[in-house]
């Protein structure tokens, strides 16, 4: 797995807007000019849209670019959520990795995201989490991200959230300031990050404090070997969980423990770190850390190394689920 070591300072370069659409045809009508404009600027395009929309967009832009010489590069298809858990923050971190690779070589990128009801979960809060997380994870990426949501979704949370998670609003093809936008951390502290699907009892539970982090590392190493990881992967996962556990003893309180589910199910290692505290930042480790800041790097690196890293808070405290494939 490639791991980034971004050393840039925290300048916001992301442009993140929302448009509300009346129909599937409206999605294409709104997205096509954005794609065409990006093509005209020679900028790459990345999509997370339904298959029908992607096809329609391809036809529309091919027709428009008839006179140009070489056909434009096909759009980059962004990752879909993987595994049993829907985690907006995990997907945001993943997209940030994908888009940073693009902007590093090409300067900027235009991204179109279409709402997909299949990812709504029970209440649609996935989308609020995703968009809030994108503001943090992509802040220093030179990307224009336009999200298209239906005006009348199944879950009201989808439009409520989208109205407040986007700094910009797409009106008549133009991105303008969104007066209802709210600081993402503040919004998520208020609305809460969805808890992932409940798992059965863990195979192992290890309580720990600052002086017992070695026991956490040994527990994770054993489980990772059992899950079929190679030596490098074991070391990386041990590091990832160590950083989450360190964070728990640093900021947490009360009963701090690690739950481990061995790799039996779906071939993935699953760990959860629980503590009785509350994080000031509901989505830690999403922004690439500033080099001068000694803190915040641990969770950021942990997110790079795992297939899922989902942080949520409830009355009992702060919880982090990590899932990793060998």
């Amino acid at each position, binding site marked *: 797995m490639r791991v980034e070591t971004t050393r840039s300072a925290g300048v916001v370069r992301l442009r993140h807007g929302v448009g509300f659409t009346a129909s599937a045809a409206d999605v294409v009508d709104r997205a096509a000019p954005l794609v065409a404009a990006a093509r005209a600027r020679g900028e790459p395009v990345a999509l997370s849209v339904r298959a029908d929309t992607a096809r329609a967009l391809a036809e529309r832009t091919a027709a428009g670019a008839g006179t140009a010489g070489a056909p434009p590069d096909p759009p980059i298809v962004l990752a879909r959520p993987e595994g049993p858990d829907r985690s907006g923050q995990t997907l945001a971190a993943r997209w940030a990795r994908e888009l940073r690779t693009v902007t590093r070589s090409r300067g900027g990128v235009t991204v179109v995201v279409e709402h997909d009801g299949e990812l709504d979960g029970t209440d649609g809060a996935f989308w609020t989490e995703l968009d809030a997380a994108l503001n943090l994870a992509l802040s220093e990426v030179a990307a224009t991200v336009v999200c298209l949501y239906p005006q009348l979704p199944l879950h009201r949370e989808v439009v409520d959230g989208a109205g407040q998670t986007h700094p910009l609003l797409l009106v008549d093809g133009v991105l303008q300031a969104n007066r209802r936008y709210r600081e993402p951390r503040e919004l998520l502290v208020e609305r809460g990050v969805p808890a992932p699907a409940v798992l059965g009892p863990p195979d192992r539970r290890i309580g720990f404090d*600052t002086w017992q*982090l070695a026991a956490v590392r040994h527990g994770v190493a054993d489980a990772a070997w059992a899950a079929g990881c190679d030596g490098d992967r074991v070391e990386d996962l041990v590091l990832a969980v160590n*950083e989450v556990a360190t964070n728990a003893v640093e900021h947490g309180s009360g009963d701090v423990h690690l739950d481990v589910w061995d790799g039996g199910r779906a071939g993935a290692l699953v760990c959860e770190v629980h503590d009785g505290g509350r994080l000031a930042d509901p989505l830690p480790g999403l922004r690439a850390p500033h080099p001068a800041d000694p803190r915040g790097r641990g969770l950021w690196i942990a997110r790079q190394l795992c297939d899922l890293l989902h942080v949520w808070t409830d009355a009992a405290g702060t919880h982090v689920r990590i899932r990793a494939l060998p």
Partner: protein
Amino acid sequence: MRTTTVEDRSVAHACAVPGSEEELWEVSAAFLADGLAAGEQVVYFDDGTADAVLGRLVDDRVPVDGPLRDGRLRVVETEVTRAAMRIPLHEAASGFAALIDDALGAGFPGIRWTGQYSSRLRPHAGLWLADYDAAMERALVGRPARALCLYDRTRYPDDVIEVMRGLHDVQVESPALYDDSLLRVTRVRPFRLRLAGEVDHSNRPVLNRLVAATLDEALRGHDSPAVLELDLSSLRFLDVAGAVALVHAAEEFPQSHRLALSGVRPGVQRVLDRCGAPFAAQLDVTPHPGSRCPGFPLPPPADPPDGAA
């Protein structure tokens, strides 16, 4: 009782009382390495500990595979080590004598052994150990053979250790700047520290303090070197904040000085790379050359059933 270092070849029969696992691996490996350097046959009595000791030899750049193949280095398997502790004392004595005879017969100028050859002696450990040790002493006397008896604090109760120390004339000591059972820091020579074990949230401040103190010493000295070296050959885990601390320390060094990290294992190297080490102008990172340098998470060893009474 006299104390000495592990390299002192004038002593035939000594003991050591390591306070931590890292010290145990350090002392065991140093004793074996010194024997290999002297051309002797060296024997290690394993009790689930050989992997760690051989790993430490690799850390120390001591060739292991060749000597294991041609018999210069012998590892007595755990089952055999434990069985040897259950035979009658007079047989043990003749067993030690035969070990020496075999080595001399094979053309070695001498032999030495160490390892966990008495850690399973229970329950009247003090008494049995004393007799066992006396039998070994009789086998060694007047012969080109030496033994280092290890009574480490994780495997032996304190009262037994005191009895056994009293029976040995010489104790091998290996001073450390710091040892908390997770991390051990020793001074190899001025301005060169050796780190063994793991650095995490619990002991990271020690790392900062030692680097700062060593730099301070270097700045005060008239002819002190411009490079401070941390030998990380035996550092199996470094957490992110520890890596950041090393990178920051180097960035804040005065222009005249550099921080060199040597013997860096692949896993530690990856953490350093992710924490900006490649961008720190005054930081040198050199990987460990060893081909077989096990990382922190050794696969769980298959522990043989404990047959000792």
